[in-house]
């Protein structure tokens, strides 16, 4: 029982993005980005509706 509660808590703690990922052709689930450098107040992916979005995931090392 205790383990079940722990598992439930862990699942709830997972970011929505980790639970649901879009495949090509799917609507991408909405997600809220952390504060942007060079932003304009838009933080949610859905706020860019109407414009194509290029996402580049990279590293500083």
């Amino acid at each position: 029982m205790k383990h079940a509660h722990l598992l439930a808590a862990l699942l709830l703690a997972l970011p929505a993005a980790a639970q649901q990922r879009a495949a090509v052709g799917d609507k991408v689930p909405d997600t809220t980005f952390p504060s942007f450098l060079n932003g304009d107040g838009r933080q949610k992916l859905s706020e860019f509706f109407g414009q194509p979005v290029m996402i580049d995931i990279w590293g500083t090392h």
Partner: protein
Amino acid sequence: MPSAIKHDHELKSRGLVSILVEAQGADAATLEAFLWKTFPDNDCFSCTGHAVPIPESAGIPHGAVIGVDGKLLWAGNPLADSKKIADLIEAELVKVKKGWGDSAEAKKVRAALYGRGDLFAATAIVAAMPDGESKTALQAEIDARYASAKNAIAALKDQGSFLAAHARAKDLLKDVGTRAEWVAEVTPLVAEFETPEAKSEIALERKLDKIVKQLRDKKGDNAPKALQALLKDGSNLKVGARAQRILTALQTPLKD
């Protein structure tokens, strides 16, 4: 990274949004330092450590192209698929300009709204549509776009980008046309830039812009000294806070 920045420079004015997500655990300060030192010409939306809901990848670089309607068009290694990415983006930018949707009205509304930023024209087309789901959905897009444009003015001011905020405010006043309730809301936003406080911010930002240009042109050896001098008069301003962030970034050593 360089290709994303290049795309951003070339295509932002046509509507492309470029988002850089650092995925190796850098904190926000490290990210800012890295970008100012390595890619000072970067204007992309940039953030750290966010799980983007696209197909997982074993490594980086990794990326995605999302269409104007929010659907995933491509995901993978951007270095391996540069031609495909360019073609997909170009096709989406044509949609931005010409509109898209399942009816002629939807295309016209979206061409006005996203292609020309003409909120007034988009509203007029929607107003002439028969009541129904399509009309409601398109009106919601217009309302969201208007709210986002207003929010951008406040956000840009808050982060010390008064010149960009002023330009956005003037554009928005033009875009709302003669719709009275919007004009009544946007006119004071434009007027705020005529206050002594805003004029002080703008005067300081013009000086900051010269330093930023030197950094972008890779001629910023004296930038820290120039930023320190600028901060003597403007540290209490929002533009001063932005200058301080740049100075801190330039003074932050990067890890090997």
